[in-house]
């Protein structure tokens, strides 16, 4: 996973270069998600941002998290988002966002998020964090099912409830549609 040696003629380490590349791709793609008018292209840019984030996870020494990121966010969630967009959106629909009426709440949420990020950056002891070990599948599993069993189970119950709720909503709507 790690290429510790420096690149010829540049003096940077491979990890530094890859980090810069992934970070740049991710920032550009994230901006594209927000600024694109075409919603499908915004979805595509979101997939690129997810992929770049997976690359950053690999550089940070946790390939398991990177694999899960690609598997869940690109393979499942992005596909579902694209699927939903394609079913609801047509070429004839207006390309600009129509329901953009939440500027004030969005600004407040952004400010709070920025404050949180700044606070966490300032309070983190960075030199200690840099020396984290590479997390392989076994250590992730032992941590998840040893130390954090209860949160894990709570999250799975929550997900199950969400699935049941989603199925219930979808079912009821279709029944009513057939009855009408």
């Amino acid at each position, binding site marked *: 996973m790690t*290429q510790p*040696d*420096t*690149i*010829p003629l540049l003096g940077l380490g*491979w990890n530094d270069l890859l980090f810069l590349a992934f970070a740049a791709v991710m920032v550009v793609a994230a901006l594209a998600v927000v600024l694109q008018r*075409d919603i*499908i*292209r915004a979805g*595509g840019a979101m*997939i690129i941002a997810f992929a770049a984030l997976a690359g950053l996870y690999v550089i940070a020494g946790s*390939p*398991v998290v990177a*694999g*899960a990121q*690609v*598997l869940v966010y*690109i*393979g*499942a969630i*992005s*596909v*579902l988002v*694209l*699927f939903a967009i*394609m*079913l609801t959106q047509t*070429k004839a629909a207006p390309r600009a966002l129509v329901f953009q009426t939440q500027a004030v709440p969005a600004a407040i949420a952004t400010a709070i998020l920025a404050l949180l990020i700044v606070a966490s950056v300032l309070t983190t002891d960075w030199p200690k964090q840099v020396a984290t070990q590479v997390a*392989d*599948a076994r250590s992730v599993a032992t941590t998840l099912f040893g130390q954090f069993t209860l949160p894990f189970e709570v999250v799975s119950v929550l997900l199950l409830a969400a699935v049941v709720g989603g199925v219930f909503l979808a079912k009821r709507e279709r029944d009513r549609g057939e009855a009408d």
Partner: protein
Amino acid sequence: MNRSASPASLIGRVVIPLLLIALVVGPVAVVFLATVIGPWVVGVVNSNLGILRFVLAIAGVLLFSIPAAFIIIYMELKVIAYMNLRVGPNRVLPAGAAHSVVAGLKVLTKEDFTPNGADRIVFTWSPVLVFLTAVMTFMVVPFGPGLVGAPLNIGLLYLFAVGGMSVVGLLLAGWSSFNKYSLLGGLRSAAQVVSYEIPLTLSVVGLILLAGTLSIDSIGRQQAGWVWDWFVFRQPLGALIFFIAGVAEANRTPFDLTEADSEIVAGFATEYSGMRFGFLFFAEYVNVFIMSALIVTMFFGAWNAPVDVNWLLRLVGVGPLSINLDPGQLGSSLMAAAAVVPLLATLILAAPVYLLRRHRPAWQALLAGFLLLNLLVLGVIGLAAYMDWDWVAGLVWFMLKSFVFVFVFVWMRATFPRVRIDQLMGFAWKWLLPAALLNLFVTAFAIVLIKSAGIN
């Protein structure tokens, strides 16, 4: 007018100074290369071996994927033709062996057409994404012991992650074409691939429990020995589910609804032409090979031979064979042998050909003898390589087994009718998923049982 006035022609006047310059510059350049650039290059290469190996592996995988796709396309044409009592391709080379290559060249020369109303950027890049994911999966497929592009210790996770990405490409290809058949194909592929990915992944979890690792290389190593050491005999249900779900993941008959030509023209590929269609087409056959390779790697012994060769040799009393011939010991007799043996062997091999067919001219017999000698030498070299390097033996077995499964894929295409979309989804969620879960629970229960029995 007078050509002999100047003794040196134009060429001479250019070549002689150039020769002189080369005589002066050459040695200087050689010394410079040897003392300054050479060590620098060696140093850089040595300190960047990891990244160099990675780049070489990607290049190798890319170079391998195209001929593999060509061979599978040809195989499909020919095998289905014979199963239909037809002849199949028979024009280019004997038995039409280069037919698919010529078809590939034809695709390259065709017009690259973008329909009106299509989203140009997405339309252009989605075939690239489809092909990229297919080739990226190759990186963790072990072709032999140590013959793997990137020996990840989370190989299986990587495999499913990258494999799940291909659906994005199909979906976007279908949507961006601005064609209702394309869109239908894209939506079908999304529904199908996402549904079948769950049993595909779950069917391997039992295997992961048994092997105790996510590394594909290590799973291959654990199946060394005899046929019954293969994981298919410890995970028969898992292997069956993996095979069925793999067929659906590769969009092959009987689950090829994404490009069902009798229903939606060609699905997501309808509007594609030229090399963009070529990418989609190649990706499909690369996926067929990858699925076969994965089934072989995980359930059918990876690169291991079905028999323990060393055990058999010991049974006969030969012991592990190895050729310890030091060419340096032979000295000058080696030179003599190298000069005489090929000539003699050609003559000896040519003799029976000449005697059998005396009406042919002698040079034809000599040529036949020479070709026979080459075949013989190639065979001996291949045998020595098989005996001495385990990666050669591994590659041979791996390819043989993989192409058996490619044949099964082709056979299924010639045999099965296509399923309906509701049958497809119902089968995935009502049969494959419970079966995969059952397989997982039974495997986990058996492992716990055996462990507790072993401790007592």
